[in-house]
């Protein structure tokens, strides 16, 4: 057996997941090298360093016992919430939105951290809630508050994409926790009804993005430009793509943000349908793995948290891909592990580290059970 040669801690790592993450990450780094015109500067090298460092960190996180995670969750929630408040006052104004705290050595985007933390917080809440109370009001209003505060603060920034992601992560945990169906059906209906009103409250550029998504060719050089160029990049790639480093759309800068939000379009341009499908399948693998961790989890907390985290990753991937392929409005959500940007990688790696931790927990318990059975 292989496990007899390889040291046990190494053998027990979830290699399937790590290979998938490595595949996705390498795809991203290789793409950043191409997007910079065949240079490790300014993106590929930085992203590579961040990626591998954080991958190691994620594996490190996976050794943190679940009890610690549970204990730290409320602390982390309050801290990040305070940081979100802080960006309102000392936030750095960039990209037309207040999103960062400049710490000098790096720009911190607290809303990023909120993504895993909100899921953990809700999982913790439903773990503490007695099972019998799950169909009561007291199962709903604290959760609503826990979600509402950070979502509201992110909306003010304004960062619609992140706000939506936070709300989604929280609501998914509520759903999986077993809250009554009518709550979600009603919520969905209410959202649909409130959408036109909500849109009128959006910033003008956000409104335009939504309208343009419905008909990008109406203004191909104006607001619909990003989307049109993204579709051109994807569509012109064909089955096998134009070849690595040969994407005219990204290399000649017709495709804006080819290294961040529209990385997928640029990748498909060069790698074609084959590359695009491979990337999507790799993400699907990660998500399947995450959902399996959730199903196998031994504790309520791990169960809900693993599912919530996985769903958040799914949400990111799905919205980003829908956006670049013209199925959703341009909301400025990066593609996890592929798009350039330290903050985003950090969040996703944190989630993956937590998922591995839950996995390890489940496996350890399983081993203990088997050992108990044998012994």
């Amino acid at each position, binding site marked *: 057996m292989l496990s007899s040669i390889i040291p046990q801690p190494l053998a027990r790592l979830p290699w399937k997941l790590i290979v998938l993450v490595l595949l996705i990450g390498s795809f991203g780094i290789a793409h950043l090298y191409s997007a910079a015109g065949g240079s490790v500067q300014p993106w590929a090298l930085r992203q590579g360093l961040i990626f591998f460092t954080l991958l190691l960190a994620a594996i490190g996180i996976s050794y943190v016992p679940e009890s610690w995670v549970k204990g730290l969750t409320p602390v982390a929630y309050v801290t990040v919430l305070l940081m979100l408040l802080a960006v309102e006052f000392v936030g750095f104004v960039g990209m037309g939105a207040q999103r960062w705290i400049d710490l000098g050595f790096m720009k911190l985007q607290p809303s990023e951290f909120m993504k895993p933390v909100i899921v953990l917080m809700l999982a913790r809440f439903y773990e503490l809630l007695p099972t019998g*109370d799950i169909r009561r009001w007291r199962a709903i209003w604290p959760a609503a508050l826990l979600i509402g505060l950070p979502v509201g603060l992110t909306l003010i920034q304004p960062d619609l994409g992140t706000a939506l992601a936070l709300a989604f992560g929280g609501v998914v945990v509520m759903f*999986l926790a077993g809250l009554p169906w009518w709550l979600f059906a009603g919520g969905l209906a209410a959202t649909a009804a409130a959408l036109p009103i909500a849109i009128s409250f959006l910033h003008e550029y956000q409104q335009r993005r939504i309208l343009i998504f419905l008909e990008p060719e109406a203004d191909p050089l104006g607001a619909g430009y990003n989307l049109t160029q993204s579709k051109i990049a*994807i569509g012109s790639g064909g089955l096998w793509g134009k070849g690595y480093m040969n994407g005219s759309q990204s290399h000649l800068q017709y495709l804006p943000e080819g290294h961040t939000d529209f990385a997928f379009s640029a990748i498909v341009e060069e790698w074609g349908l084959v590359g695009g499908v491979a990337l999507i399948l790799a993400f*699907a693998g990660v998500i399947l793995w995450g959902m399996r961790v959730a199903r196998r989890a031994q504790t309520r907390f791990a169960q809900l948290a693993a599912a919530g985290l996985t769903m958040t990753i799914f949400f990111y991937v799905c919205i980003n891909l829908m956006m670049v392929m013209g199925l959703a409005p341009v909301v400025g959500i990066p593609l996890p592990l592929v798009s350039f940007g330290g903050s985003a990688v950090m969040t996703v790696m944190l989630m993956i580290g937590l998922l591995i931790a839950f996995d390890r927990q489940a496996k350890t318990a399983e081993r203990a059970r088997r050992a108990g059975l044998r012994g």
Partner: protein
Amino acid sequence: MAKPPKKPARFTEAQRDEAFSRRSLLVGGIQTVLGGALIARLGYLSISQNQYYQTMAEDNRVQMIIVPPRRGWLVDRNGKPIAINRSDFRVDMIADQVPEGQVEVTLKKAAALLDLDPDQVERISTELATKSGYQPVQLAENVAYENYAAVTVRLPDLEGVLPQRGFSRYYPAGSAVGHLVGYVGIANREEYVAEDKNPLLVTPGFKIGKEGLEEVLEPQLRGQPGGQRVELTARGKLVRELEPKPDRSGNTVRLAIDVDLQEYAARRLGLESGAVVVIDVPTGDILCLASMPAYDPNSFSDGIGRTEWKLLSENERRPLVNKTVNSLYPPGSCLKPMNTLAFQAAGIDPDERVHCNGGYQLGRRFFRCLKRHGSMNMRDAIMKSCNTYFYAMAHRTGYDVVAEMARKLTLGMKYDLPLVSQSYGTIPDSEWKLRKYDQRWTAADSLNASIGQGYVILNPLQLAVHTARIASGRAILPRLIGVHADSAPPLDIPEEHLAVTRQGMWQVVNAAGTAGTARVPVEGVEVAGKTGTSQVRGLQYGDGKNVPWKYKDHGHFVCYAPFDQPRYAMAVTVEHGGTSGAATPIARDVMTFLFDREKAMEQLVAYEEQWGGSLAEREAAFQRRVLELAQANAAARAASDETA
């Protein structure tokens, strides 16, 4: 009080776990569906829409810098150039090549070197701001060598400025061919829209035909534009040059015109306002289509100045009108030979005599002749241009038979010629009058029409073609493009009728006729012709001679030569020449040129000394005057701007 219904059972852990697994399965299902949808969408975009998006990507990537094709030449029947391209210097600018934020500075520097005025600089500046994708904007064309050199040596400081060799249209014969060839110019908005916004039309250095043959022959002359294909970034920066697409020059078009003859005729018209048309009798080739005074197409092709336009359009001699086809005149007695053919066809014996006692009594009205000619037969009536004879005979036959003959000789007809427009005039008859004025045709109308007055109006080209038909007896039609050898089929006019008419025309020049001055000083060449004088206003305003220029009678002369073997037919019209005597010497000299160039040139040089220089010299003097006036106007405007 009834017992409240039993509360639902408390939510148990088992239920909770079941709910979780059911719901996580649902979530997984949704994920799978969405994942499938994403892959389907990806496949749709990159496989079924691949062709479309590939084109779009290519459109993004590759831009074509249009290289205007060289315009085809116009050459005369002997291959001598009428319109050619002269290489000149031009300076363009590509905003996308200028370093960021330096456009205005660079433009200012270049403008100083090229002596551009502030208005031009402003125009260029807006054009630079609106043109994207590596498209050049013209700074100046036809640049003097010194300015061109000044730009060239400072090129390192002028990134984005492109000194180039360009081509400008050149017409060696100048205004002598003005109306014939027209001119070229920068396409205007309507022309641009009419061609579906063809980008070639707004390419610097490209010009399209604006008038005359340049306009009509545009499809042949234009050629196919070439292009430098370049790969550009979204910001318009050049990545690399791809394989260029070569341009194809326009076709050379050979005209029937003899440009030497055309130039001679134009010069020979001198200070007069008029037209000379020469037709090659056997084939109908138009050898000369001269109309004077005319604009200089060279000057127009560089862009028409306001001052020049004003001077030309206000000139009472109408230099902007092509008098060979766009000006109509009562032909006067020029049509008398045609009348005699009609009379013979109506059965009148050419030897029948009519006594002229100075006019013809029609009812209570007396139609005057110019003299008391006495007894006149048909030939003599032509020779002497005796109105009485024609009054009498037209009264007998009626004018409808004459009109039929006139049409047989193409009078009143619109020719199939590459001309921008033709005014083709009127040959009246009873039906026409009924239609137009709702009135019956009267005998008086016949009498007036018989001497080429009244309702009859024609253009000089028609007079020349009708003369060629009389001279040849063939159904020739005028042709402007190409040199021909074929001859037209004969007309259904008996040769003996033609002989009588031709005899009369011979007598006009060579016997005691009205055009003795038209005899050419060339051995063995006899001219046959007919004079015509047409009234501009009724005789009550004077005799058409000692009156201001614009009230003077028009002088016409139609002729052909040699009499025994007709080769050339001609019509000369001198507007307000007073009498046909203004036209006959011109016809004589132009005819002389066709047989003996040297002799004709000697004659011309002598005249031009009296007129204040040759046509080219007078044109140059005119251009100097235009320039002086323009400068004076500009100075006046500047002064009023300052006071304002």
